[in-house]
């Protein structure tokens, strides 16, 4: 086979894609109901929040950093927005919730950006600190109650759908409108990373901060954008999550950190690598959502999930890292 075909097949994203397809076939074989439209709609619904968060995290990983505070930002934005809209006359529409949450998320992201962009502190430790800071602040000063009286707009949003079908037993399956936001964030992230100078700067920063600076990129500005972006997306994801489950629980979402990290990392994004693609992350998210779903369908107890996620992270990072090591030894580069 010719050279470009070979390179396509050896790319990380392709391998993960193959694993995803294989897994779907396997699950469908064991549990045929997997291949219905309803099941597909279900998977899409589950993928929305994780997917939006993953897009933000992808940008961070490509830039050579890591962020573990974005789920705390999501929870904070979600809860603060809901709380604010309930007690103030700022409007009940979903749009106002969205804008407010994005603003809150962006501002929290700025806190990260100050420590990482201005003070140039290590990203893991800063975000570990802000994770505790934000979540602690949320629970200590804003509230711990679960809010069930969501603003009208959010409830409306959770019911609105794009497509509806009726299954064989009369049950209605619907694709929630929220999926549009997932698609939107995927396209936006793709556009920024692949079609703008900003995106080139982010990749350059991930490849080598020194080289990026010398080439003329304004690194602090890039960092501010990156952490503001992931914060804003986290805010959006938070509000959508609260709408979909119809409850604002301040303890929700924070536990998703590792799931999202696993999804992005499986999709080929690498720490300290300046590598990662949107399509890879999309496949990674799909794989995680399918696996989680399959575990339930196949009746495997939920505590195996942690093991699976751990293994996925290790495989997702291990295989490329090992191949890179082998390539280094052989004296060439793989991609």
């Amino acid at each position, binding site marked *: 086979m010719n050279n470009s075909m070979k390179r396509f097949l050896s790319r990380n994203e392709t391998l993960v894609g193959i694993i995803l397809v294989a897994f779907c076939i396997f699950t469908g074989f064991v549990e045929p109901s997997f291949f219905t439209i309803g099941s597909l709609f279900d998977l899409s619904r589950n993928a929305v929040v994780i997917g939006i968060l993953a897009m933000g995290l992808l940008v961070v990983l490509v830039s*050579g950093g*890591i962020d573990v505070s974005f789920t705390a930002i999501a929870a904070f934005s979600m809860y603060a927005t809901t709380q604010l809209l309930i007690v103030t006359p700022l409007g009940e529409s979903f749009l106002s919730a969205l804008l407010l949450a994005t603003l809150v998320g962006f501002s929290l992201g700025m806190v990260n950006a100050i*420590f990482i962009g201005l*003070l*140039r*502190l*290590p990203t*893991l*430790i*800063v975000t*570990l*600190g*802000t*994770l*505790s*800071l*934000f*979540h*602690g*602040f*949320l*629970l*200590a*000063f804003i509230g*711990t109650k679960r809010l069930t009286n969501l603003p009208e707009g959010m409830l409306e949003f959770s019911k609105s759908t794009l497509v509806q079908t009726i299954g064989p037993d009369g049950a209605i399956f619907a694709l929630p409108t929220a999926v549009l936001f997932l698609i939107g964030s995927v396209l936006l992230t793709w556009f920024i990373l692949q079609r703008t100078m900003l995106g080139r700067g982010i990749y350059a920063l991930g490849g*080598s*901060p*020194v080289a990026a600076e010398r080439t003329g990129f304004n690194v602090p500005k890039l960092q501010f954008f990156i952490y503001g972006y992931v914060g804003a997306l986290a805010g959006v994801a938070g509000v959508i999550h609260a709408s979909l489950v119809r409850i604002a629980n301040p303890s929700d979402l924070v536990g998703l950190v*590792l799931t999202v*990290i696993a999804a992005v*990392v499986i999709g080929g994004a690498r*720490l*300290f690598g300046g590598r990662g693609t949107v399509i890879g992350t999309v496949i990674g998210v799909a794989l995680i959502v399918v696996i989680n779903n399959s575990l339930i369908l196949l009746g495997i*107890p939920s*505590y*195996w*999930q*942690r*093991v*699976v*996620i*751990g*293994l*996925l*992270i*290790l495989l997702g*990072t*291990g295989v490329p*890292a*090992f191949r*890179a*090591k082998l390539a280094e030894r052989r004296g060439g580069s793989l991609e």
Partner: protein
Amino acid sequence: MINKLIQKGKTEGYTDATASSFDWRLALRNNAYTVRLLGITVAIFVIMSLLQPDAFLSGPSLRTMAFQFPEFAILSLAMMIAMLTAGIDLSVIGVANLSAIVGALVMVNWIPGGAGSVQTLAVIGLAILISLGVGTLCGILNGLLIARIGISPILATLGTSQLFIGIGFVLTKGHAIIGLPYVFSNIGLGLIWIFPIPLVIFVVLAVAVAILLNRTALGSKLYLLGSNPLAAYLAGLGNTGLLIRTYMLSGFLAASAGIIMMSQANSAQAEMGSSYLLFSVLVVVLGGVNPYGGVGKVLGVVLSVLSLQFISTGFTMLHFSQFLEKFAWGALLLLVMTLNTVDFRELLSRYKRDGARSRT
């Protein structure tokens, strides 16, 4: 550190036959951070005592603190060792819990009903050994993933932490293992004369680690590896072996902490103490260990743990909520990092110069 070695050599070489005195000024200057930390620790103790003299300085309060802080301290030691090599071990909690669970399973299943005290003690001893073994094995896995396969420590230990906690869940089916022999709780709650056993264990481990780091070749090599992995590689220090041993030691220490936690809680669970992860990072960074590697002292970590334990107890006495404490830890970590910016920046430029890919 090199400076200190050269200076020391100079002093020793030039003194005459009369005994050379310990150069206090030099020691103070080289350990400025630790000395400052000592001052902070004392200050916090005094402040807390003044704020709540009856509650804070009371026997029960001091005794509780003496029983509580060793487990955090040992976990922090585990974290410290990984950080010295410019890595991090996010799996310490997972390792602690998994090894505790395995030990608990041994104790619960291998002590025949109505066994005599000698038999019970024997099985407990075996359980402890197996537990430490499990911790060491987990550490070796971490080391292999990081050194042999080349996964970055953050992601490798992130993955293994999920793996270990997950295996813990699978082994316990989500419940806590209870019904541990009564004698076992002595480890976590007993006293040797007036000293709590956990405290004694911690002191022994801390002294051992300090000796390892300061007086053995392995220790020096670890510091060198952390300072400059590329130079260490080129100097033939054997990065792979060093890293594996680093995480092996970290796993061993985590397992020790796990045993103490299990003994105090009288049960073993898959995810006990998961909030201690951030806490140990905070302790280690506050203690003067540089996350970029190559710098850090055991004494600093010890003082740091004490300070934070005083603050924690003080908070509880002032009736601050646990969430406020969480907020405070985050804020404190960020504050300490910011204050250390000057030192970190110098090492950051060194890190930038060598590039992220110098980790071989």
